[in-house]
């Protein structure tokens, strides 16, 4: 698997001389889980979980190979080298294979990695591995029918998730995006709690509602890009080859860098069904991603899905699937339609703020342990939306960090809930109490997890939130609403502290209750999930630069820079 170097032909003196590595590592990462699923299909039932664990483990180890090219980006001079002169100039692990060719279009199997998706891919394989370990006691579950089907769907889900994060062709992205729906539907619907059917179809319906609009945008963007390159061939130099584009494209990088397309898409005179193209398309894409994020008011599927889903599925749902919303904003919405993002910015910031406050208030009102964690997710993802909406460097960085931090802390929280649910068989917060005394090791882990979720300085949740708030303040020159919004969002941290502290008090502190006395301490398997997550919570809290910002800032800053260039034109 030696990387093959491909040198693009220079089109002019100043650009496009670049070395990209073409490897099939990402392809292996995508389809290894699917292969594992195939293996399970033909293996005896007892072997299902072993194969699943092996597959997840190998996938995770392989995904660590994605990190080295991004090392050393912390050095400012090296950052330029790594990320080049334009956004995503240095995409790594590229692989493009013609897939569907028409007379006037070509859809490619096109995957690649930059600072934006690299951390998310590693997060995906990591969380999936832990979730697989969490599924290890499948045979003790109340609904333990067909372990083969469970692990097959589980691995298919991983294929879909990795695929979404690494696709650089919009069509391919869409295929993977929809491919995740079916496994998730069955994982919730078959192995879920009492209202699983309702929760599963609600999840499906909300997500599909969003992706239907995305499909419309997919078709529209293709034809408008064809128009764009036909109208302004002088600007339509391809990002990859430097030659003039002659057809429309599904290539996300091309869509977000090609000047002819940028001009056409963001121009106020480009209309779609009588509405401005940029704002309409931005909204079409946004709805699809906002459902996944989830943002108020399309968040209602999340508490239901989480409460009904089995613990490992909840971990994946919270840890990975929610990140796809934020990733979609950063990969598609903003780079391609900066004018749309600018037009909607106040609205989006308001949605983010409402999500933060509403999610926190709802969390405070819950008596169901898992539902509380689910609402806290909505609140935390509100920060992501808020940070992105102001379109500033710090805001984007904060949003990205918040996604990763939440991707670590929320699976941990859901697993913590799962551990206690397995022992108590209920999730009523008010019936717990004194669990720290009963299960000291577990209690310690729980404290770390929930404090990370709270955003305690020194733990991972803090950096994301503060970066988002700084980003909003930073945008005060551009948006007059920035300062009041930032103040309100900062104040909302108190609400977060409120529900988390109150939760810890009700569940873990206090006198030991006799009915819980017999609870066994967290097992080795459970600790093997909790400890790595706890360690990461702490590490990301104290080394944010070295663990994340160094990898992602180059790409994010380039996105923001390109966005500002486009905005400056209008």
């Amino acid at each position, binding site marked *: 698997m030696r990387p093959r170097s491909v040198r693009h032909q220079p089109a002019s003196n100043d650009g496009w001389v670049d070395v990209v590595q073409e490897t099939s590592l990402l392809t292996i990462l995508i389809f290894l889980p699917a292969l594992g699923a195939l293996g399970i299909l033909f293996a005896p039932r007892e072997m299902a979980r072993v194969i699943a664990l092996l597959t997840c483990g190998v996938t995770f180890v392989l995904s660590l190979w994605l990190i080295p090219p991004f090392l050393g980006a912390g050095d400012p001079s090296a950052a330029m080298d790594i990320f080049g002169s334009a956004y995503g100039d240095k995409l790594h692990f590229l692989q493009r294979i013609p897939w569907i060719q028409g007379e006037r279009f070509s859809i490619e199997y096109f995957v690649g990695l930059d600072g934006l998706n690299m951390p998310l891919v590693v997060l995906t394989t990591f969380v999936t591995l832990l979730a697989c370990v969490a599924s290890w006691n499948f045979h003790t579950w109340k609904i333990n029918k067909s372990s083969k089907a469970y692990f097959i769907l589980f691995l298919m889900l991983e294929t879909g998730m990795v695929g979404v994060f690494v696709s650089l062709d919009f069509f391919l992205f869409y295929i993977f995006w*929809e491919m995740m729906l079916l496994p998730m539907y069955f994982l919730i619907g078959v192995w879920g709690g009492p209202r699983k059917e309702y929760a599963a179809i609600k999840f499906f*319906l909300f997500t*599909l509602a969003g992706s*239907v609009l995305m499909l419309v945008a997919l*078709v529209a963007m293709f034809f408008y890009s064809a128009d764009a390159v036909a109208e302004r061939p002088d600007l339509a130099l391809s990002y990859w080859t430097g030659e003039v584009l002659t057809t429309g494209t599904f290539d996300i990088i091309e869509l977000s860098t090609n000047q002819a397309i940028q001009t056409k898409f963001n121009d106020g005179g480009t209309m*779609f069904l009588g509405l401005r193209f940029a704002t309409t398309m931005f909204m079409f894409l946004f709805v699809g991603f906002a459902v996944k994020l989830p943002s108020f008011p399309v968040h209602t599927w999340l508490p239901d899905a989480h409460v009904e889903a089995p613990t490992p599925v909840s971990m994946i749902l919270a840890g990975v699937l929610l990140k796809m919303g934020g990733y979609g904003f950063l990969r598609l919405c903003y780079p391609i339609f900066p004018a749309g993002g600018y037009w909607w910015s106040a609205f989006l910031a308001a949605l983010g703020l409402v999500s933060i406050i509403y999610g926190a208030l709802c969390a405070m009102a819950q008596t169901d342990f898992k539902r509380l964690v689910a609402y806290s997710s909505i609140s935390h993802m509100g920060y992501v939306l808020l940070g992105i909406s102001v379109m500033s460097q710090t805001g984007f960085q904060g949003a990205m960090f918040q996604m990763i931090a939440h991707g670590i802390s929320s699976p941990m929280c859901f697993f913590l809930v799962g551990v206690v649910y397995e022992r108590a068989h209920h999730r009523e917060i008010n019936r717990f109490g004194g669990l720290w005394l009963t299960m000291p090791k577990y209690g310690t882990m729980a404290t770390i997890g929930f404090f990370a979720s709270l955003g305690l300085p020194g733990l991972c949740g803090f950096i994301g939130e503060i970066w988002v708030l700084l980003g909003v303040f930073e945008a005060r020159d551009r948006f007059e609403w920035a300062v009041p919004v930032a103040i309100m969002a900062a104040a909302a941290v108190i609400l977060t502290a409120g529900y988390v502290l109150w939760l810890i008090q009700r569940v873990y502190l206090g006198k030991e209750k006799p009915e819980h006395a017999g609870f066994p301490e967290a097992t080795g398997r459970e600790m093997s999930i909790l400890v790595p997550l706890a360690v990461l919570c702490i590490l990301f809290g104290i080394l944010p630069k070295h663990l994340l910002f160094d990898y992602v800032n180059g790409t994010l800053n380039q996105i923001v820079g390109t966005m500002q260039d486009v905005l400056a034109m209008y």
Partner: protein
Amino acid sequence: MDTLLQNFWTPTSTDLFWFSPELALVGTIVMLLVVPIIMGKSARTSGRIALFGTVATIVLTLRVAGVVQTQGISGLAPPAAAGMLILDNLAIYFKIVLMLFMAGIIGLWFIGSAEKERNGPEFFVIFAGSALGMVLMAGTLNLLMMAIAIEMASLPSYAIVGFKKRNRAAAEASLKYVVFGGISAAIMLYGISLLYGIFGTLNFAHIAPRAAVMLHEGQNTLILGFALICTLGGILFKIAAVPFHFWCPDVFEGAKIEVTAWLSVSSKAAAIVLLLRLVDAFSVGAVSEGLSAAIFNNLALGLAIIAAITCTWGNFAAYRQRNIKRLLAYSSIAHAGYMLMACSIFMHPGLLGAGYSIGQSPMGAVLVYIMLYAIMNLGVFAVAAMVIWQTGSEDIDAFNGLGRRSAWLAVPMLFCLVSLVGLPPFAGFIGKYWLLLALGEAGTAYASVQSLGTIYWTLIVIAGTNTLISLFFYFRIIKAMFLTDDGQPAFTPSITGATMANLCGIALLVMGVFYIQQPRDMAEKYATHLFQPAAAMTHTMTTTQDVYNEKPNAADPDFRLTTIDHEQEGAQ
């Protein structure tokens, strides 16, 4: 005597070779009637004869396919007369798809009905008769032939629906079908007679360019529009487009399930292909007169509205159904709506200017969709039939726990249903995607033509929204199969049936992931090199005026019509 004989026309052996697939079907019918007289009545023998007939038809179609090179052939008529039937790539494509589907249906019949059937020969005579009618429907541009073909397809369908003659529901369904069918046939004939009155010819290839000119010059547009609407009504009835759809759910519910499966695809597909042919003739006709195909924008708008309503209505109405056959009836209405959307694109290569050399994009998309739809429906109906025969219930509850009871049926059913919703990675999504792409192409190309561009983009949004609506009812079956389990006993399906269903499911998966391009390329190939009415006419006419002044040909059956035309002109 000599002059009389001159007017007698005998087809040459070449003519007969071109139309050997149709003759094979006719031969099958004869065999079905004759063999029982000699060998005694046996349902299975009849089934085998019918199966052999379909295979022979496919083989002959493939042999004939080599004849079609560039233009297609219009034939089975005396020399220099307007052809009654057309042999071109479109007709060949449809014949192959229809006959393969028919073979699948006969396979289904062998599994479930062969034991009980007491009137095998009669059943298959009617069955093959309707297939013949549909094949003829897809291969004509002559209005008279069109009317005959639609009747030829309809009359056996009425009978086959009511074939279970002691069954009240079947009788009711059949009667409903006859009444609706009769009325729409009457309306269509009225429309055809009006067209005949206006243009003095029954050959649509001659009508289309002159209709374009009439619209351009603004004469008689009202009567022309009325005539076209009436004529299209008959076709829309076969498609079961709203508001001609009322027969569909009742007929589907009353008929035997293999008949339902047959009607759900074949009658719609045949009518869609016929409509495509008319739309193509319109576009080509307009272009041959130096006009844009957008001259028919009112017609396009009408079809687009009907398509949008059909699709939405079908999906919403399906939501309330608990009977699987009724549910699938509404599903078929909805899918007809998707296909109609692309049929509303009046477009022809060359009329769009540089940069838009699109080939036959909308037609190719519809042809792919028809094929995928046939596969999806065959799979769904095969599983549904197996479940109905096993449980004796047509309710959705009969599917409860099918994932446990018979995974070999539940999994292909899942694939087919998800494909019907139109979700990746299954081929149904690809089919829908080509349709959307065709609509987007039209929306961009017609951006400057009045409201046409907006119409097509709106259709895209409506098609997308309908995907969402359809999710509800298809997932009710999926939910029943995998999420609900009321402890019904497990069963082993017939191997043939399970194989058929699984082949459909796997085909959808494979065509949704690996072979996305190939079906499309194939359909594009069949969508080009059509019999082009305008091109075929170029040797006789250069301008409209020439058509009006055309020298009557003694051998031309249109001879008298041309005369009438002149008289009309004189009267004006």
